């Protein structure tokens, strides 16, 4: 570091981060442009939805939550999964994972931003959002699980944004961060990660009106699937970082992540099997949603191919990762990771939310598929999430690399 430390204040930190984010090779600029285009498409979709109301979506009085809430549920898991890097690196002092913990936290922030945007676009009256603010509004706490979810998601976002920001700022200034300023928050964030996903599960689990959701296994299964899909996404991000930047990631890190993913994925499959057993060994009136999902009901079977695909690729992905036939060539595991992520995304997204609402409490069966506007907005939010992750990781990795190089020599 050539600049002297005294001149490096908070403003030069922000300025440098912005500069690093905007500068890069032409391929990087194109990548940013694509993300901006995605976001613009999403904004266009939202303007249409804002004008027409939620009738621009394919949701109805029966399927009252759809693609947005499905994606929200999946992404809460991705956000929670950062704990699988934070826990070993800060508590068990794992040096390898410590190097990439910051990437996990960046992905968590991106996932949380997407979660909140998904909830926001799902609101019928977004301008009245302030009614949730304690003090000027009325937050139905502790009665409403949605109120809990709002609190835990915002808290987790703050933890995952501020702790890495502090550590990075210290590293930027070339000094060691002070443990007592951030370590308590690390410990807090570990418990909090579990909380965001348990509370999100309770959101569904606490509804006796919906037998498909009213299931005590939901919370634990949410965690298991999150700790499989989340680290899988982080692995993909690490592959991208490894191949596009000079921040090199060793094979043993991928291997450690692989072991985490496989353990969680196997537990997830076990719980899935347990749920399927309960629904179909002695099918009751309450198994109708599961019947709808797996076999179709009254001629409505649009989800059937999706769920069987999800379970198959989930299983295949888990097996490939578990037996790892390619040994040290981690890049070959890429497709397996993608299979696992897509499998969990289908099963925990649309395969969980929609059948919970079908048949309706009065027995009506219908079909649901997202409208073009829903797809457009979802694409925009995905672009936003990737943009946030990129904007956070690019400067973070530059600072970390510089700090590491300075401290090794």
């Amino acid at each position, binding site marked *: 570091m050539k600049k002297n430390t005294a001149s490096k204040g908070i403003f030069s930190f922000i300025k440098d981060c912005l500069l690093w984010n905007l500068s890069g090779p032409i391929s990087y600029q194109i990548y940013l442009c694509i993300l901006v285009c995605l976001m613009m498409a999403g904004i266009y979709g939202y303007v249409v939805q*804002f*004008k*027409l*109301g*939620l*009738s621009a*979506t394919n*949701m*109805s*009085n*029966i399927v*009252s*939550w759809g693609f947005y809430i499905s994606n929200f549920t999946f992404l809460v898991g991705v956000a929670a999964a950062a704990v699988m890097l934070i826990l070993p690196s800060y508590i068990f002092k794992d040096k390898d994972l410590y190097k990439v913990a910051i990437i996990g936290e960046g992905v968590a922030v991106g996932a949380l931003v997407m979660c909140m945007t998904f*909830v926001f676009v*799902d*609101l*019928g*009256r*977004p*301008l*009245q*959002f302030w*009614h*949730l603010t304690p003090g000027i*509004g*009325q*937050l*139905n706490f502790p*009665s*409403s*699980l*949605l*109120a809990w979810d*709002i609190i835990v998601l915002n808290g987790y976002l703050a933890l995952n944004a501020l702790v890495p920001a502090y550590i990075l700022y210290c590293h930027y200034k070339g000094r060691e961060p002070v443990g007592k300023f951030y370590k308590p928050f690390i410990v807090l964030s570990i418990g909090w990660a579990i909380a965001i996903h348990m509370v999100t599960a309770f*959101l*569904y689990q606490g*509804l*006796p*009106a*919906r037998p498909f959701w009213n299931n005590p296994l939901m919370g634990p299964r949410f965690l298991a699937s999150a700790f499989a899909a989340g680290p899988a996404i982080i692995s993909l991000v690490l592959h991208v970082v490894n191949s596009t930047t000079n921040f090199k990631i060793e094979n043993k890190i991928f291997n450690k992540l692989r072991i985490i993913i496989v353990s969680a994925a196997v537990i997830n499959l076990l719980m899935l099997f347990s749920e399927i057993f309960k629904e179909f060994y002695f099918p009751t009136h309450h198994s109708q949603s599961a019947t709808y999902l797996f076999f179709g009901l009254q001629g409505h079977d649009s989800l059937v191919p999706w769920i069987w695909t999800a379970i198959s690729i989930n299983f295949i992905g888990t097996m490939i990762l578990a037996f790892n036939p390619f040994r040290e060539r981690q890049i070959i595991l890429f497709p397996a990771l993608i299979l696992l992520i897509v499998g969990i995304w289908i099963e925990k997204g649309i395969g969980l939310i929609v059948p*919970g*609402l079908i*048949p*309706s*409490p*009065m*027995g*009506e069966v219908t079909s649901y598929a997202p409208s073009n506007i829903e797809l457009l907005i979802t694409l925009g939010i995905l672009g936003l999430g990737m943009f946030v992750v990129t904007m956070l990781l690019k400067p973070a990795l530059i600072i970390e690399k510089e700090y590491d190089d300075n401290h090794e020599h």
Partner: protein
Amino acid sequence: MDSDKKKKMNRRTFLKGAASAAIAGSAAVTVGCEGKGLLGSSEAYALEFQEYFKKYYRVMTPVERQETVTRLEKLAKIKQDITVNIDTTKPGENVLFGYAFNVTRCEGYMECIQACVKENNLDRKSNTQYIQIFEMEPGQMTPDQGDSKFFHMVPQDGHFYMGVQCFHCENPPCVKACPTKATWKEDDGIVVVDYDWCIGCRYCMAACPYMGRRFNWNEPEVPKDEITKNQHYLGNRKRVKGMMEKCTFCIQRTRKGKLTACAEACPTGARVFGNLLDPDSEIRFVLENKKVYRLKEDLGTEPKFWYFID
């Protein structure tokens, strides 16, 4: 200090301006430019602006309630050119409303639905209905086995009919679910929605085991000459897109001692509505002398809506 204050003021005025711009924008989107003349529409914007910042109904003082009612009545005059009368009558002393449905008598004429749609100013565009009538076959006991989409002459031989609407549970799951307390149970047992406080998250809809709630997916439309003008703040007043709504036991009628529109319209006398705390009421007679049952008793929601067989 002074400059500090000035700064604060500036920030506040800026925020207010930004907010009003946002409201004006949204109002323009919802209202559309109908060419009402500059003065008329600017008054409407001012009223909409004040409406946006108004409080939650249950924490309003009587004066604030009167103010919002006046604004809403003015807005109806300006925007739709109709004179509505919105009241805020409180629950009566010693009143707890309940409902009983005579399964033997109902013949599926659906006069109740017609009356309900008319009385409660329900959206004609998406054909919103609070009441569902299910056609049932012998041996069926709960509506989820029946058919709500029948379209033929009634009554059909070998069938009977069951009506379903919001059951106004004593232990309502929707109230527990709402993140903004926008839905609650009044002292006379009616579960109501503060439409303006609802953010449209639809968690209550997921929580209701009886399909009792309806969402405004689009901007609701009611022909001007069909609007019921005697309204209640928590009842049949104008709703906009994105709000949750539901059966209110015709709060604008029943709080004034009238029957609900559905009970009044029923040609067979299958619908019994009344005060559960009045020992001489018809509903008490039904509960004491008929064999009654409720739907999904196992959930512990305690609906105040009973079915009975003659």
